[in-house]
């Protein structure tokens, strides 16, 4: 994917990603404190996460299980034996001044993720590693010549995922981020709520420029701490242009150690230089002596493997190929696991996939959004949706009636037939009965009949009027398709 500027100048963007995903464990990684967003500052802390003298960490096994789940979903080799390491650096939001992380034995390594490109197409992005660590707190720089530290987040379980530089645009990086979000939500291991900082991105970006037949690599730039898909995509696009301009101006190429760090200004939509040369950061990693190494038994791993669900991208592709849904609709249905599963149950219960899809993506989504729930949480029986779909297909109810029936499904335990009956929404499809009504309408409206049969300019309008009259007489319960057929026959 090269961008051609002219015959003798083209470039290719190279992007690798570092992603931090906060796992949705109830308690922190190494202590019993609750993980809670938005609590009173420093109210979800204890001596352990405050790094008080004498405290010791105890591993949260749930976090390990979640991390293994993701590593398996990312097709990683999962380490049978791993351990914790200390990563040393001084910063006020890190009370111990070291972070418990994993260094040379990451939980997962050498995996890949498939990301969706254009319709139906996917691309494999290789994963270098996935490891567990504890999050830091937050420094708050308010007014005055001091800063404050909130340590509620300190010690929260964090999964760090590092990809190979296999992406070639902001769009691709965004696609990976979105896919990963969907994946971890499917797996139930993270809420992946961007607003709450559950996913944070750090892209590494540079260009391969081909100029006058020679290839040049521009210096790598790492953009720190991006917390929206938009910022991720835009910062990469911005960097690509900035690096090209810089290269054309300075001819500077990548050398050892000239990696720089930049921040993203969301308002100006620009990256801003933070550190020119990557300071030789020496984290002095060494094995954490306060924790015992972690040995994963084959049984435990296979238990987790057996509980792995079908990944969203696989489901999406299958919905397109098996059910003939559009890629877009399949994407909407697989945005959340409960929606996808609901859809599948309704189809299994006999609903036509496209009809069920329409009911869910229209009425279902609207209702879910109104209530702030997912479709799966609406307490609707998938069988009822399947029945409703069948009723629409058979003409027992109109498409418009089906939406009010759907709304009522979430309010009651009754099935669509009972509801349609109660609401008088069952269409009259009895041709004999409808024929009588049509005849009566034709008798009452000779002018309109004439307009139609004469084939005048008013013909179409008059026909619509007659149809409307029939619907009025039947209080909207006539099947318009059958009425239309009768009208055509009588007026021909």
């Amino acid at each position, binding site marked *: 994917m090269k961008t051609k500027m002219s015959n003798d100048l083209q470039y290719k963007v190279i992007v690798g990603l570092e992603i931090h995903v906060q796992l949705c464990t109830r308690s922190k990684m190494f202590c019993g404190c609750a993980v809670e967003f938005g609590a009173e500052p420093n109210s979800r802390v204890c001596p352990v996460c405050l790094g008080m003298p004498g405290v010791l960490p105890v591993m949260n096994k749930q976090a390990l299980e979640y991390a293994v789940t993701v590593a398996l979903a990312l097709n990683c080799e999962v380490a049978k034996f791993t351990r914790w390491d200390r990563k040393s650096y001084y910063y006020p939001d890190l*009370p111990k*001044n070291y972070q418990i992380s994993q260094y040379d034995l990451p939980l997962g390594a050498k995996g890949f993720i498939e990301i969706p490109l254009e319709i139906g197409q996917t691309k494999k992005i290789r994963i270098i590693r996935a490891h567990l660590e504890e999050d830091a707190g937050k420094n708050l720089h308010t007014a005055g010549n001091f800063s404050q530290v909130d340590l509620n987040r300190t010690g929260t379980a964090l999964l760090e995922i590092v990809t190979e530089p296999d992406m070639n645009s902001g769009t691709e990086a965004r696609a990976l981020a979105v896919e990963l979000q969907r994946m971890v939500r499917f797996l139930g291991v993270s809420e992946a709520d961007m607003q709450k900082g559950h996913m944070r991105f750090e892209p590494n970006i540079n260009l391969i420029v081909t100029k006058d037949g020679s290839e040049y690599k521009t210096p790598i730039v790492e953009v720190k701490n991006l917390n929206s898909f938009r910022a991720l995509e835009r910062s990469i696009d911005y960097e690509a242009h900035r690096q090209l301009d810089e290269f054309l101006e300075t001819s500077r190429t990548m050398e050892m150690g000239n990696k720089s760090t930049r921040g993203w200004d969301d308002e100006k939509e620009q990256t801003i230089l933070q550190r020119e040369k990557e300071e030789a950061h020496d984290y002095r990693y060494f094995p954490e002596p306060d924790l*015992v190494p972690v040995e994963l038994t084959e049984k435990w791993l296979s238990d987790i493997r057996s509980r792995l669900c079908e990944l969203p991208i696989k489901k999406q592709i299958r919905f397109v190929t098996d059910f003939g849904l559009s890629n877009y609709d399949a994407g909407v249905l697989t945005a959340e696991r409960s929606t996808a599963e609901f859809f599948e149950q309704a189809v299994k219960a006999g609903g036509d996939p496209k009809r069920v899809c329409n009911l869910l993506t229209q009425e279902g989504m609207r209702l879910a959004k109104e209530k702030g729930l997912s479709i799966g949480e609406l307490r609707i029986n998938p069988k009822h949706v399947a029945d409703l779909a069948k009723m629409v297909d058979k003409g027992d109810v109109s498409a418009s009636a089906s939406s009010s029936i759907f709304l009522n499904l979430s309010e009651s335990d009754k099935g669509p037939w009972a509801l349609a009956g109660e609401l008088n929404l069952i269409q009259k499809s009895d041709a004999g009965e409808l024929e009588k009504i049509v005849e009566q309408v034709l008798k009452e409206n000779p002018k309109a009949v004439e307009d139609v049969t004469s084939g005048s300019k008013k013909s179409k309008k008059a026909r619509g009027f007659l149809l409307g009259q029939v619907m009025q007489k039947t209080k909207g319960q006539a099947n318009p398709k059958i009425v239309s057929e009768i009208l055509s026959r009588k007026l021909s």
Partner: protein
Amino acid sequence: MQELSAKQLHDQIVAGQIKSVEATQAVFARIEKYEPMLGAYISTFKEQALSKARHIDNKIAAGESVGQLAGVPVAIKDNMCTTFGATTCASKILENFHAPYNATVVEKLLAADAVIIGKANLDEFAMGSSTENSGLKKTVNPWDTTRVPGGSSGGSAAAVAGQLCFAALGSDTGGSIRQPASFCGVVGLKPTYGRVSRFGLVAYGSSLDQIGPVTRTVADSALMMNVIAGHDSADSTSVAEAVAPVCDYLEKLDEPIEKLKIAVVPQFNAGAESQVQKSIADAIDVYKKLGADIIEINMPHLDYAIAAYYIIATAEASSNLARYDGVHYGHRTENPKDYIEVYSKSRAEAFGKEVKRRIMLGTYALSSGYYDAYYLKALKVRNLIRGDFINAFERCEAILMPVSPTTAFKIGEKINDPLTMYLSDIYTIAANLAGIPAISIPCGFDDDNLPIGLQILAPAFAEDRLLRIARMYEKETNWHKKTPPILN
């Protein structure tokens, strides 16, 4: 009364012959008299102790059941967290630090109805072999006040030897219980790594640190172990009961071990002063007379123990002590220019020289480019030393050696020569590197009437046998009954 052992005192308190209040009062009377001379304590809790003692007396009077240390006044080293008083680690950086929680061992002492009377002095953050590195206080040896009590648990050992408590807890990273016990003529046990919870022990070298008792007798050591040993879910490195069950260390204490096989390491002992060597040789004879089979073994890698230890311990320390930064608690510099200065000045102002030296050493050892040559190599040496012990214990049940190459040295004698000071840990370090239990028991006096210690090492989790072997010797000798002349 002050000459009773902790166990004897406890038995008499439970029998109603002595009141805990009387014992506690007697201890505080001695503290008033001798503490100005010895300097064993950083803090004492007279009111709290007396009130606890009264509470125990009332319980006993009411016929309620009481714990194994009921009514016994004990001291703890001031690197174990307590919700009462400060937890200073003898450092200016934590001088006013009040912990929000109790260390597991403190909870266990309290649950056993012990009366905690004070927190004992130590080398700052337990780094040292003489207690001269304390940033807060000077402790002297009760046998000769011009000499050091040993370290780093010098306060605990001096308090026990000076009868300023009936038993104490120390911590041992490279000999910090055994060497001061030896210098002060008392019993010091470093349990197997993982036998006693480290939760609440302010870390120095996390993979080496272990809490243990400092007592007047072997039986008291066993009694203290009955209270403090066991798994703790708050300490991942403490060993599960299923792997190594805790037993009643007192139950069979007086039963000698039949067909005991003891090893000595001649090549290794030759470095000790001649009077120390002689006392060890005499101790070996005692065991021979008791029917033990003495064998000579070779432990090829022990010569590298000190080098490996000072890399591993300082590397861990450099990381463990990073948290003392003036940001969240402890000493903070005044008027810092920026947050970097909060770190650099707070630390520069409040850490002592030896602590700084070890942080520098450890930081260097872990630095990129040096890690393999130092830290990784030290870990390999550690494994080889472990292997030496595993091989040795296939042929014997215990190994005898000195605790220290010398008896207590003069205050100031080695403080400006850190290398010589480090070398005085030569006999004690290996047990920490291997994680095995080792005990120091009194085995004689030199010409200056300074105590000499005998060290016995046993396989991991064999504390019960180790204590029985020590008790066999103690029964045959009277060294442990001697008290420092200046106190009489």
